[in-house]
């Protein structure tokens, strides 16, 4: 889906959700849930409870303020990540002010020097990909398997895996570039 298609599709979904269409909401939600979860999970230092708390607030805000989402200015995923950044920033300020919840893995301050780091960008880009793309990229770049080994493990031909790998890389690079280009 190119940028124009994405804009048009998300604009349609947005209108439908504002009219109260639950199916349209499900489509938007499914598209953004994984990337947002990864983004928040990493910012929360892997703390599951904290991640859940932040996500609850994020999604509540996203539904309430969906009218403010402008598909022409960016994707839905990038918009919800912007919402998450603000929630995380507020949370960080609150914990610093109150001196509470100083756990081993505190919420990382957004806007700090290492923000966003390469690992986070890659993880978020990965989370936005379909499952088969994620699997083949992990097999290739995380487990260091050859194409033949991946084909053997997944009971597919090497040609099919090469093709899948090419498409997965293209999709990943597109997602990564979008994330890299965001503030």
């Amino acid at each position, binding site marked *: 889906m190119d940028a124009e298609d994405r804009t048009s599709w998300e604009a349609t979904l947005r209108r439908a959700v504002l009219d109260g*269409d639950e199916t349209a*909401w499900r489509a938007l939600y499914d598209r953004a849930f994984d990337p947002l*979860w990864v983004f928040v999970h990493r910012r929360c230092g892997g703390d599951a409870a904290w991640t859940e708390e932040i996500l609850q607030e994020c*999604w509540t805000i996203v539904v309430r303020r969906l009218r403010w989402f402008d598909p022409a200015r960016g994707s839905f995923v990038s918009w919800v990540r912007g919402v998450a950044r603000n929630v995380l920033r507020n949370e960080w300020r609150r914990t610093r002010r109150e001196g509470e919840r100083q756990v081993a893995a505190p919420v990382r301050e957004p806007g700090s020097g290492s923000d966003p780091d390469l690992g986070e960008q890659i993880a978020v880009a*990965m*989370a936005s990909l379909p499952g088969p793309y994620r699997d083949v990229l992990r097999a*290739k770049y995380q487990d260091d398997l050859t194409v033949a080994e991946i084909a053997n493990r997944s009971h597919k031909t090497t040609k099919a895996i090469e093709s899948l790998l090419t498409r997965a890389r293209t999709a990943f690079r597109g997602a990564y570039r979008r994330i890299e280009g965001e503030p």
Partner: protein
Amino acid sequence: MTDPNEPLIEGLDDVPGDALDGPDAPDELRASLLARTTGMVRARRRRRHALRAAAAVLIFAAGAATGQSLRADPAPTAPTPRPVAKKSEDTLPTNPEVLVARLAEATPDERARAMRDAGDRYLDPAHADPAAALYCYQRHLAEATETSDVVGVDDGWLLTYLKLQTP
């Protein structure tokens, strides 16, 4: 054909740490947040429907009230026709010369006016006597001042014809 061993990101040979192999989002969290947010979307739909219904009721009520007030207003009455002033002489004599005799004492202007009225009445369908009307109009033109030769908007066809024939 692309190289199957090309790096995932150009210029980056090793992908850092757990970037690719991070934990997946828990399904329970995904489902619970979906249920919660879907409930908010549903509530929005109900709110919109309620607002639309309220707006429809308001519009209907406004329309009904307007109709009610229109019915409550007294119907505009047709203007009461003013009683037509009866001419001084309700009955026209069969012979218009009788009129001339009656007007013997009147001034020329009074006679001219009276003969004009009489000509109109003889032409009226109630009398339908063009010959008597012709006689009256001729007498009217004979008695009237010069300006009476000008065709007026109230002049009937016969009087107009006579005026146009007057040299």
